[in-house]
């Protein structure tokens, strides 16, 4: 049953034994600049219960986790511990209160040993408050034995696989006797066996009275592990309800909240000759034997879970990272490895995933950001012509329907969607034949999202070959002519548009376990 969120009223039914929730959010809102990440969200976590948090990318799950963990303070609303309002001023406060968080990307100290990573700040002490290294080692070994994993407490954390890093984080939570265990997509980078092992540990913790908040994109896992589920959409609370009685489709409908079919129309285009051809590309330990082609007029999506190696493939194709074996051809010509300059002049363009860090120079103006990819063309004699730069920027601002005050404004005052348009303008102005775009609409509001999609569709219609990496399944299904699915560094499936469904893509991405 779905309960409506009342004013200040907890959205979940009464606890099993009348005890207040161990940890709760009541009407919490949080904004970052113009982006409202959480709107009036309430959530109750009870002892002995595993609670799932579901929602699309950008629904506000990570913000919620960081609020519970004391990283962010809510703008409005309260955090409740055992029913009492509490203010976590820092992650340390939350940890003191028994809240342990395992982040999507584990936060390790690469230079310290595994045992030190577990006990940092709380090392077992010998006389004179010295660190008792032997006790620390033994206790770490004991924890690993309890978890049933073979890790050496003395090895440095540098180079541990993601799965092992997560186990270290869980050992850390265990060592703290955490009352609340929050896991932000812990399974994204794990293989089948590793997931089973993790779940056994989590179930044991839950039975011991731990409250668990579990975030995963793999719906099967939610059904397997959790008793209740809370769904978020675009920062807002949608539902909190028992898992029993729900179906996959129910849950997806709550997450997506709209009809998938009509939202992202890609125009039918005429598919031309092969523009990008990747052959058996391998970067050791990152991805293996990846082959595919993208033709003119086509949008090919590269789907998969976080950490499957999609962005890494894109980086290697564009020459940012070196590859160990294989070939990349653009318009039939082989690219030399590790040369973005050669890739650009061959007609490749890469719109990276993280536009703040990699896509834009944030405190430079719009015109400079757009101009930077084509400085040669903007030269008049030995100097860059400001007028030419401005003309080009104005041209693209109009074509992309950019919303701005002046072209000389710094890009960091623009909204996420408009920033993305600037990145697009910057790369499209190089007149590429192949556009690789990584997470084209991450962190962009719905309206601009549709504009970006229309734009990509238009570009394909004009004969551009587009390789789109996206974790946003509706986007993948709506936009792509073909879906390539990666799992753990390998290309595991190629699904044509007609057969691409949420289920078929997720099944391939998760290794076909569902």
């Amino acid at each position: 049953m779905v309960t409506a969120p009342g004013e200040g009223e907890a959205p979940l039914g009464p606890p099993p034994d009348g005890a207040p929730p161990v940890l709760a959010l009541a009407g919490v809102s949080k904004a970052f600049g113009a982006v409202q990440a959480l709107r009036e969200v309430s959530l109750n976590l009870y002892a002995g219960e595993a609670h799932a948090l579901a929602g699309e990318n950008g629904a506000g799950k990570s913000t919620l986790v960081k609020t519970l963990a004391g990283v962010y303070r809510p703008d409005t609303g309260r955090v409740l511990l055992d029913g009492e309002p509490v203010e976590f001023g820092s992650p340390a406060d939350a940890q003191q209160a028994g809240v342990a968080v395992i982040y999507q990307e584990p936060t390790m100290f690469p230079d310290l040993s595994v045992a030190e990573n577990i006990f940092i700040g709380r090392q077992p002490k010998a006389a004179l408050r010295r660190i008792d290294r032997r006790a620390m080692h033994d206790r770490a070994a004991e924890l690993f034995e309890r978890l049933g994993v073979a890790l050496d407490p003395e090895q440095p954390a540098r180079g541990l696989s993601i799965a092992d890093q997560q186990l270290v984080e869980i050992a850390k939570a265990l060592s703290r006797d955490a009352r609340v265990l929050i896991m932000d997509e812990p399974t994204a980078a794990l293989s089948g066996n590793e997931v089973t092992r993790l779940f056994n540990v989590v179930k044991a913790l839950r039975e011991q009275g731990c409250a668990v908040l579990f975030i995963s994109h793999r719906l099967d896992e939610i059904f397997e592990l959790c008793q209740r589920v809370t769904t978020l959409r675009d920062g807002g609370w949608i539902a909190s309800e028992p898992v029993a009685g729900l179906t996959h489709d129910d849950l997806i409908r709550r997450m997506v909240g709209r009809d998938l079919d009509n939202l992202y129309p890609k125009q039918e285009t005429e598919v031309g000759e092969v523009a990008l051809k990747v052959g058996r590309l391998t970067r050791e330990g990152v991805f293996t034997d990846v082959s595919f082609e993208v033709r003119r007029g086509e949008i090919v999506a590269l789907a998969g879970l976080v950490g499957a190696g999609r962005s890494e493939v894109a980086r290697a194709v564009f020459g940012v990272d070196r590859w160990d074996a294989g070939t990349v051809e653009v318009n039939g010509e082989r690219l030399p490895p590790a040369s973005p300059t050669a890739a650009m002049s061959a007609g490749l363009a890469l719109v990276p995933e993280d536009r703040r860090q990699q896509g834009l120079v944030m405190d430079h103006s719009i015109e400079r950001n757009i101009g930077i990819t084509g400085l040669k063309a903007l030269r008049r004699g030995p100097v860059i012509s400001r007028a030419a730069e401005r003309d080009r920027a104005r041209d693209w601002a109009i074509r992309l329907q950019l919303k701005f005050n002046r072209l000389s404004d710094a890009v960091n005052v623009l909204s996420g969607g408009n920033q993305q348009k600037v990145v697009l303008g910057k790369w499209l102005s190089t007149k590429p034949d192949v556009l690789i775009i990584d997470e084209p609409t991450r962190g962009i509001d719905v309206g601009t999202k549709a504009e970006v999609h229309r734009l990509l569709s238009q570009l394909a219609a004009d004969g551009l070959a587009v390789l789109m990496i996206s974790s946003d399944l509706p986007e993948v299904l709506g936009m792509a002519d073909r879906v390539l699915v990666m799992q753990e560094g390998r290309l595991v499936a190629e699904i044509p548009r007609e057969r691409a469904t949420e289920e078929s893509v997720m099944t391939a991405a998760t290794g076909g376990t569902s």
Partner: protein
Amino acid sequence: MSTVTAGRSTRNLVDLVFRARELSIVAALAVLVIVTVGVNGNFLSEQGVKDIFLNASILVLLAVGQSVVVITRNIDLSVGSVVGLVAFTVGDFLAADHGRGIVFAVVLGVAIGALCGLVNGLLVSFGRVPALVVTLGTLYVIQGVDHYIAHGRQINAVDLPPALLSLGNGTLFGIPYLPMIAVLVMLAVGYYLRSYASGRDFYAIGSSPEAAALAGVSVRRRVMAAYLFSGALAGLAGVLWLSRFGTVVADAANGWELQVVSAVVVGGVAITGGVGTVYGAALGALLLTTITSALVVLKVSPFWQQAITGALLLLAISVDRLLALRVARVLRRRNSRHGS
């Protein structure tokens, strides 16, 4: 099971890399000494050895303080100026009245150094200004203050209490005080960094500031403490400088900050933080001092000394980089095997 063996071999590899650094400095020292003695037997005379250790002591103290800062992924360029300021002001203070005790002089010097460290620490940790800029700024400001106080004057050995001068040049059981102090400080700090929870925090911060904050380490307080400590040690070094040389003008220890940073980096403390020991840094300081002395004995122009220091620095960081790449590669291979 494969994880365990793979883990072991990684650990051995990484262990080897770090021990290799300290061993290779000792080896370089040995080669240097042997070659120099081969050319001139006097290099290892009692006085010659004593001189090297006396000269190295102050650099070792500064390198120990600097290591703590560098381990947190920061840098303190102001230490040379602090030494100069402390040497002059404390000298001025003692010269004014011979009755003033040297214990008080040491306390005063350490306090002045700590104050400078406090300013650096506040600006870096709470002001969130990059350490390079902050300490470059304080380097010049402190130098300016020093010159203002000195006003062209000079402190002369004859004006200083004999007790202070004997601290700089006296011995206990034939061993000069200065190296003893330096070794004691090094051992204490080394032990603290290794065996105390707050000591490990410095490594944690340098290894990953974000992870440290998430783990509840009070990053700002520790960074603050690192600067305070580096400043205080520079203060102590200033008093020792005064006691060793007796004659001090305003720009004493001018430019030493670069020598100190070189010693630390040559000694295997990663400039990116999180890695290294004060023992390595101290060995680095000893190596640089020995090179200077050896060049004099070998009659090499002193101008070459700086070039050699620079070359050594480049060699040290190149080796670090190569080894890091090597380790990363091995780990990547291992994970790919492990994963598939």
